[in-house]
């Protein structure tokens, strides 16, 4: 039997003192990294249809600006603006898929902290058009044309997707397309034939002067056996197209191309993408039968699709925001957007050049 009485090589107290010292040193190191850091952040919030190109823009901006972190967030266009005004999020850069939303939501309302409008200018930088994206797995893949698509949608065995117009601009824009199509194809019952019987409470059309008013009911649910599939965001329809659960769906052209989906190009008189038809687009309104957001009048007039951005007056880092805006409008930003099939406005347009920052004015002027 061996006996051994062990003596510690270092006393317990000394070990504790050593550990404490090490912990303190580590904490100081961490604090030093944080406090003394030169890292800055720029916070972007934008419409869901811009996700793909803006992810790349963010990465490219970070690469050009070491020490800058680009934080990104995306939602439906109305929700994007609401984050700034009603939800109290301080954002540096805000981009929406519908420029019409900025004046009522940002100009006409004031920041309670300052009493001043949330923003005083916006820059329109991109456009888009509505298309009918087709599933690669659909038997209709080679069959749908710009002349026949609407007749196919009336057939109960053709499953087509629609973004919910109560939540997504692409949804109310699709309804505008269908109503405008009545005139284009000289078919006065086209809207009813495509959508009649598809919802438990119908989407209806009335006439107010020379304007067709599409009314979306408070509760919008597809009826049993309906061939229409409704989803809260148009981006959610992409997965259903790819899986073959849908034959086709109304989408933005840029989104269809980003996801390599075939699509039917609709006539320019109805696709909300051609400025010379702006007046015709304006003969359709979509009215929501309920008020989802207290601040938003739930009625939208047909117009050319225009994307716009602004820098809110309470942006946490306005200097960095201006740099990002200039980057977006500059050669590399435009190259990234175009590579992702986002049609650009050339030159970009300011609604109030005097109110816009110098960097944005110069960038707009430089893009000619």
């Amino acid at each position, binding site marked *: 039997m061996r006996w051994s009485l062990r003596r510690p090589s270092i006393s317990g107290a000394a070990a504790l003192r050593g550990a404490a010292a090490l912990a303190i040193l580590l904490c100081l190191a961490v604090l030093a990294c944080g406090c003394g850091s030169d890292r800055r952040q720029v916070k972007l919030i934008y419409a869901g249809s811009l996700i793909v190109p803006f992810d790349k823009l963010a990465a490219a901006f970070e690469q050009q600006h070491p020490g800058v972190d680009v934080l990104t967030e995306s939602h439906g266009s109305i929700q994007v603006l609401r984050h700034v005004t009603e939800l109290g999020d301080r954002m540096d850069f805000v981009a929406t898929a519908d420029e019409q939303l900025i004046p009522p939501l940002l100009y006409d309302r004031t920041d309670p902290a300052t009493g001043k409008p949330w923003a005083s200018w916006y820059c329109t930088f991109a456009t888009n058009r509505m298309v009918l994206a087709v599933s690669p797995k659909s038997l209709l893949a080679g069959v749908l044309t710009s002349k026949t698509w609407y007749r196919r949608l009336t057939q109960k065995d053709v499953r087509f997707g629609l973004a919910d117009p109560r939540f997504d601009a692409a949804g109310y824009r699709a309804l505008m397309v269908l109503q405008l199509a009545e005139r284009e194809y000289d078919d006065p019952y086209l809207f009813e034939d495509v959508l009649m019987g*598809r919802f438990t409470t119908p989407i209806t059309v*009335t006439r107010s002067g020379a304007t067709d008013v599409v009314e979306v009911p*408070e*509760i919008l649910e597809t*009826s049993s056996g309906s061939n229409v599939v409704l989803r809260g965001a148009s981006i959610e329809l992409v*997965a259903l197209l790819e899986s073959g659960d849908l034959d086709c769906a109304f989408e933005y052209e840029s989104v269809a191309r980003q996801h390599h989906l075939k699509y039917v190009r609709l006539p320019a008189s109805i696709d909300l993408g051609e400025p010379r038809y702006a007046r015709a687009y304006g003969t359709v309104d979509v009215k929501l039968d309920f*008020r989802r957001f207290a601040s938003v009048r739930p009625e939208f007039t047909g117009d050319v699709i225009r994307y716009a951005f602004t820098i809110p007056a309470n942006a946490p880092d306005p200097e960095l925001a201006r740099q990002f805006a200039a980057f977006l409008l500059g050669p590399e930003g435009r190259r990234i957007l175009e590579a992702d099939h986002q049609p650009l406005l050339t030159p970009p347009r300011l609604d109030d050049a005097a109110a816009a920052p110098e960097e944005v004015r110069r960038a707009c002027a430089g893009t000619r």
Partner: protein
Amino acid sequence: MRQGEQHLKAFGRRRVERGAGRLARGRRVRRRVARWLVPAGALLAVCLVALAAACGGGSGGQASPSPAASGPVVLTVKGEKSSRTFTMGQLQALPSYEGYAGIKSSTGVITPPSKYKGVPLADLAGLVGGISRSNGVTIVAKDGYGMTFSYRQIMENGFTTYDPATGDEERPDGKLHVIIAYQHDGEPIGADDGPLKLAVAEDTPGQVVDGHWAIKWLDAVSVTRASAAWKVQLAGAVPGELTRASYVNCASPGCHGSGWVDAQGKRWEGVPLYLVTGLVDGGKKHDAGAYDARLAKKGYKIQIETNTGKVITIDSRDIAGKNSIVLSSKVDGGELPDEYFPLRLVGPGLSEAQMPGGIARIVVRVR
């Protein structure tokens, strides 16, 4: 044994004895510690249990011992004929449900399911008259954000649900419970989202729903008829609408009110369908000549769409001039049952399938 060895032996023995002594002292210490530790631990356990009980721990179904009627009102629930207000204490005293809820944002970002506890929306609606298929339930938040939920959503799993791991659509594993939640992961919901928030929850953490349903800062619930101020959309050569007000006017006995008695002896009252088609079959909407009898005789289709998405088609020749084929809003002098609200087509010569209720739109295909 040599002396050294003996010395060593003695030394070793002393060392063993000292070691044994230390061991023995250690054992005595341990016994003393054990003597007071066990009862102290037991006492601590009893204290913890008592504390937990006093704080009202435990999940699901346990009401607070005494609902606090005092305190600010946190929720107003309105029905068609009555309304109630609740403080937080009163809300927490109601039977509750606890389950897992999560969301998927409009751009695909998943907030995984976590535990929410609250009062089922169906139960709250039940306190002010209940809900049926003709009701919607509107939820309003303090910032004015509002959403209306259908009977199907509240009672029949009528939500699109997604796998929280992949974001792919999938059917829920079990029943979905729409609740007005006041607790998240065992804690009161903070001011960022609460104190009340709507959650669509399930027994297991296996699903998420679209984020726009998860209303935060919730402060009012209203149960309403899905279309209390109803109107039936009309489409034809010209668009039109039949509002409740214009219908009531038209249905009066001095105007165009008419009726039919069915085989069971029930009397259905309303406005003749052919006259309603006259509102949109041409330029004139009312008075003599509004109904184009010549056009009707040639024959055109009349499509009647209901609020369940059903569509029936009738030939204009089958109803031309027939006052007893009516869009009815009353039966035996009383309101129509919910399933037929707001109007039902009835009349002689029509099959049961051709007498739909819940009429929402009429399309007169004269063009």
